[in-house]
């Protein structure tokens, strides 16, 4: 079945350093949609990025990700972390059925 793997449960880094959160997925569907959602403390998740086009970079609010179907990956990156980026980040997949699967999430903590 469809699944999403986020390998890091917690990422801690210093303000100004680059961010990379890993996401890989598994699906039999040849045209999956991939999403990144962000959830700040005591808030509901909201969409950060989405993509369905292979090898095309998508950007929003300083974050970017590129869907690579060859490696089934959709890693989230940012060139310079800010304190306000501290949050839970979820990678999500819409694949071969009408469900949207979420990974287990990565807690990003940005320190001064």
């Amino acid at each position, binding site marked *: 079945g469809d699944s999403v793997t986020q390998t890091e449960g917690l990422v801690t880094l210093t303000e100004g350093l680059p961010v990379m959160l890993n996401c890989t997925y598994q699906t039999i569907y040849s045209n999956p949609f991939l999403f990144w959602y962000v959830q700040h403390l005591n808030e*509901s998740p909201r969409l950060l990025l989405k993509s369905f086009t292979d090898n095309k970079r998508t950007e929003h609010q300083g974050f970017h990700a590129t869907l690579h179907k060859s490696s089934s990956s959709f890693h989230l990156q940012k060139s310079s972390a800010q304190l306000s980026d501290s949050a839970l980040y979820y990678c999500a997949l819409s694949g071969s*059925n009408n469900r949207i699967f*979420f990974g*287990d999430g990565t807690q990003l903590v940005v320190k001064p």
Partner: protein
Amino acid sequence: NSKVIQTPRYLVKGQGQKAKMRCIPEKGHPVVFWYQQNKNNEFKFLINFQNQEVLQQIDMTEKRFSAECPSNSPCSLEIQSSEAGDSALYLCASSSTANTGQLYFGEGSKLTVL
């Protein structure tokens, strides 16, 4: 501010009691999802609807959980006999499409089963 309205924000139930949560999707969104977010922040898909019809649901939902999205009324998720393991944040999300659209989440209903 979320345009998906969930009520109540908090529920406290004893084991074996019923727990019912409601969700009003964003206007014009025919698709509604229910997710369970546990204390480890893991998301579990429960069920989704397109208009009044169930699209997908997991086995857990088929047993103690029931859900509906009647026409012209809020959607609802009900646990017939609550168990301690059901304590979680229940998130409702709506979307314009079943699998390609952005999910808009409500603020959730936090269930505590004593």
